[in-house]
């Protein structure tokens, strides 16, 4: 496969996200880049991937175009089952979602995410500096999908030592069995994909650990843009750039009008 020389930060995130998904698994898809990554996975190595959307669509083939919303009409066409929000979340709580694909405005070293507010919680909760949209279904997916894949654009303020608000629970304080003790079921953050590399969470400490660097990045350059101390895998490898075909699929087949994937 020919390696592409022309791809964007968003496109490499999408390719990396797609590759984490295994065929024949159920993925609970959040809005935005997770949709593009799930479609790319379906069009490449995972044709039997089963997407679930929180408005209630289960297993649509997604052949009528990229949804702009997890409630988009395009998610219902060819779906195997459509009820409503309760049915989607009840199935997830029961254990039918292998992966959850979510994002946030801020992430900490344990994979906890903030998508609620920038400001001082709880004292400034009723008058935040910046009000973000809120959890939506992200915190439910974080709690109850078996494994979660996090997508966060990489910069020092977003990779934060302390979240201003913890919306979607990851590995909490990283202590042993923290999620189980809190009453959650899923095993929590499995991978994090940023604009600089791919991370997992070390088995004992549950701290974010660099696995692969994206082209142009090093351990040092990534640490320099991270607001906490990263762990590094014994053998940090370079992630192969997207292929020409992958970039073509994203630009021409999946998101030709640039709904989520910006050209610049």
């Amino acid at each position: 496969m020919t390696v592409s020389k022309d791809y964007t930060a968003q496109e490499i995130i999408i390719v990396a996200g797609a590759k984490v998904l295994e065929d024949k698994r159920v993925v609970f898809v959040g809005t935005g880049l997770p949709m593009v990554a799930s479609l790319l996975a379906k069009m490449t190595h995972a044709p039997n991937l089963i997407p679930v959307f929180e408005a209630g669509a289960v297993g649509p083939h997604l052949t009528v175009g990229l949804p702009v919303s997890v409630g988009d009409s395009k998610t219902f066409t060819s779906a195997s089952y459509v009820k409503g929000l309760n049915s989607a979340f009840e199935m997830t709580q029961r254990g039918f979602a292998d992966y959850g694909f979510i994002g946030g405005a801020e992430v900490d070293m344990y994979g906890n995410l903030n998508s609620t507010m920038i400001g001082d919680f709880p004292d400034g909760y009723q008058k935040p500096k910046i009000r973000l949209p809120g959890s939506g279904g992200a915190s439910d997916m974080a709690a109850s999908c078996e494994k979660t894949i996090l997508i966060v654009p990489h910069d020092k303020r977003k990779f934060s030592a302390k979240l201003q608000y913890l919306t979607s629970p990851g590995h909490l304080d990283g202590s042993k069995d923290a999620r189980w003790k809190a009453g959650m079921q899923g095993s929590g953050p499995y991978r994090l994909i940023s604009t600089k590399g791919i991370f997992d969470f070390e088995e004992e400490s549950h701290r974010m650990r660099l696995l692969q660097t994206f082209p142009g990045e090093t351990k040092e350059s990534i640490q320099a843009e991270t607001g906490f101390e990263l762990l590094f895998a014994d053998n940090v490898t370079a992630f192969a750039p997207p292929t020409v075909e992958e970039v073509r699929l994203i630009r021409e087949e999946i998101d030709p009008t640039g709904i989520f994937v910006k050209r610049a």
Partner: protein
Amino acid sequence: MKDTPEMFWTGLSPDEARKALVNKDKSMRDKTMTLKEAVDTFIHDGDNVGIGGFVDIRQPVAITHEMIRHGFKDLTLSFQSAGMAPDYLGAAMMIDPDHFSIKRLELAYWAHEAFGLAPMFRYLTERGLVEVEDWSNANMSSRFKAGAIGLPFIPTRGPIAGDVARSNRTKIIDCPFTHRPIALLPASNPDVAIIHVNAADKYGNCIIRGSECTCPEISMASAHTIVTCEQLLSHETITSLPKDIAIPFLGVDAVIEVPYGAYPGACRRSYYYSKEHIADLHRRTSVMCKTGSKDELQAYFDEYIFGVDDFSGFLDKIGVAELLKLKKLEAANCERLV
């Protein structure tokens, strides 16, 4: 037990919700009326209003326009994820809080996914003009479900750890059966539900295409429900497949046929989103957020809401070309004939 705000009910308490049904006329009677009559009759200052749909699908837009023409004070808005309905109500408060005001929001998400943030939400919260209680989508959906099935609370495994449960009235207890922590959420029984559906009969039996969202739960939980529908059909047609009825007549108090009643949001099988119209409203709102000048937002309201008698007046201004374009896009989404 962790700290939680002191327990209180917004809308009806579970006992009040039960009592509200005891003396209600449950007969199968004609509930068609004008939207103005429905809003006058069933919505009051201080009410907790349950909003149907999800983000920008099947939002009860026509009902929000009528509510804005009427004017209300100190409403509580309850929803899981919403876009256009709270956008209109929030913008109405921005331009004239003496005419229309929101006191409180119980929500999981107010924004527009691919169409961006809701500048109204930022304006009202960052200035501390509304009380907020954050929940998750599953939380709000479960709370409506508890209300709909006559229970005071519902156990859930949602975001039991983190700050969402600290922002609201969730109680975390040790499960009496497993002895692990479990979250209990108080039921939501709104005073009134506002819902847009695909089709209904005059008694209020409703058919919904695509996602039911949380509309059946909100309708059954609320003391009263106003339904707008794309198509008002005969009772015989609507009940030809009884299992297709998502909301039974018992859960509905007013039925109004309002084609395109969720525009500029989308309605499965009928029309897709008007990205451009949504962007225009957001641009005008952002001007007010940035400069404090409400002129452009006021002009929108004067033209499209205060300047017309009803929703068909609004659609006349939108024009048939736009409505046909969105209908055609939705036909492609559904792989159906227009």
